[in-house]
């Protein structure tokens, strides 16, 4: 066990503060706060009710709380998130659900999405190289949904991307429509519903 890997297993519950300098995988329950200098992965079945401060977050389970990520937040198809996200890169995959606000930091609103300059290179994200191939394209598209301009044009871009997606399954085709409005109204839904 030389390589530090922290796993909170399916039948484990942690109540309190958790911090560290290594990757953390949550398959069980964590309540409180999480501070990591590496990647937090919430697996399918994992439930996190915490404010988290990490470098990367990959959410396939349930996360309730605010997220601050230095690099990226990736909400996968199975991911369910309620809370505010602050991160230079936020990826909402088709099928994921999210309620809250997104803050990607400052960028020039005049610049076309593909040209937006960011401090963090796109390819750096998938350091593990596992699971999704993290299409460089996906983040670019999602960038067209800045929090402060909720009425941008994510809907067409999302649906046009979906068919080419390697992960397109029966599930995703069925759900192609619903997520789009969710994302589009991200900045507005906040406060409307009880949080």
């Amino acid at each position, binding site marked *: 066990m030389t390589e*530090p890997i*922290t796993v909170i*297993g399916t*039948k484990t519950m942690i109540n309190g503060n958790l911090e560290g300098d290594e990757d953390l995988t949550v398959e069980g329950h964590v309540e409180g706060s999480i501070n990591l200098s590496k990647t937090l992965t919430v697996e399918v079945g994992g439930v996190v009710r915490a404010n988290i401060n990490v470098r990367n977050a990959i959410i396939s389970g349930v996360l309730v709380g605010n997220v601050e990520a230095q690099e990226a937040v990736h909400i996968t198809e199975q991911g369910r998130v309620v809370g505010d996200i602050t991160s230079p890169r936020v990826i909402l995959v088709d099928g994921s659900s999210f309620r809250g606000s997104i803050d990607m930091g400052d960028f020039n609103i005049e610049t076309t999405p593909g040209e937006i300059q960011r401090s963090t290179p796109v390819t750096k994200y998938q350091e593990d190289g596992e699971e999704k191939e993290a299409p460089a394209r996906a983040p670019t598209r999602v960038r067209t949904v800045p929090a402060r301009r909720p009425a941008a044009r994510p809907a067409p871009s999302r649906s046009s991307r979906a068919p080419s997606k390697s992960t397109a399954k029966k599930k995703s085709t069925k759900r192609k429509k619903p997520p789009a409005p969710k994302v589009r109204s991200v900045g507005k839904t906040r406060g409307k519903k009880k949080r």
Partner: protein
Amino acid sequence: MTNTVIGSSIVIDGEISGEEDLVIQGTVKGRIVLKENVFVEQSGVVEADIETNNIEVSGQVTGNIVATDKVEITAGGRAIGDIKAPRILIADGAIFKGNVDMDA
């Protein structure tokens, strides 16, 4: 089969409860309540009261331990606190300070 592993650079302040094995290589403060086995590895530091079925201490534990089956402190393990368990093993080279209660 996934257990819970607290890696060496992780610090948890709070309560851990569960029904599966727990391996501690990092630091845990607070309380641990488990129905299975706890392994405190060499790099592990625990400052917590522990209730479990089985515990093996190769690292450091400060706090009271109540086990329904067995407590084992290996050579190199350090434990400070009271231990209550039907079976208690303290290996040669282990460091222990506290009361032992084997009435179970």
